[in-house]
């Protein structure tokens, strides 16, 4: 787990989640695989104990799976197929891989990207 407060600009600093959504993602080699499409929270109990668990990265600035990323959302088949096709390149940056967030430039530097796991992985 990261303990370096410089990642986000020091303790106590407040940001809006919308500043993170749509931010550009940059890898150590300088390449840009896409943008933050979704922010996953985990933790609890109590909403105040949830922390950012990782970022879902997609090639488009905004993307929404409309819920079709989950196994149990099945129909209608046509719609599910279209949504999954459009979002087939989603990947996941767990919090541990996030090096730095530049809130002003809206850039997130990420060490590596992993596959979308758990319920978000399109099958």
């Amino acid at each position: 787990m990261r303990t370096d407060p410089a990642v986000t600009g020091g303790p106590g600093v407040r940001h809006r989640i919308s500043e993170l959504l749509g931010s550009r993602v940059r890898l150590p080699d300088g390449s840009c695989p896409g943008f933050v499409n979704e922010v996953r929270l985990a933790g609890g109990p109590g909403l105040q104990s949830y922390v950012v668990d990782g970022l879902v990265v997609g090639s488009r600035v905004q993307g929404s799976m409309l819920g079709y990323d989950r196994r149990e959302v099945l129909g209608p088949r046509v719609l599910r197929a279209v949504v999954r096709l459009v979002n087939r390149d989603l990947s996941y940056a767990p919090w541990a891989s996030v090096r730095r967030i530049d809130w002003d430039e809206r850039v997130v530097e990420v060490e590596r990207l992993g596959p979308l796991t758990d319920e978000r992985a399109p099958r």
Partner: protein
Amino acid sequence: MPGRDEPGFRRQYDAELHLLDRQIVDRDGRPVAKVDDIELAVRADGRLAVAALLCGPGALGPRTGGRPGRWTTAIWRRLRTEEDPQPGRIDAALVTGTDNAVHVSASADELRVDGLERWVRHYVVDRIPGAGHAD
């Protein structure tokens, strides 16, 4: 977990899918506002934690983006009296659970995030006879 079960917390939240744009409901079940944005605070260990739900045009405008978003924010700023107005804020600790809505433990009046509602109630609706009668 549809509908009327006791609201609880998910194991994980995808912020945009499960929280943003959801209805906030007060302890009496009355609609208060939408989750227009979420405030994150940097914890001592460097993690970003959910601090509050933000509501009102001051939070929605920037998220809407483009000209409609700028107008929303600008009009809201002009109508506020403060030097640097902040959007309505509901502390994350007040949230008692989520289902298809986000439930909070306070009443709408205590939360004080609906300034326009109170203004309209006071200056318009209460002046019309019958305003206090329910169906």
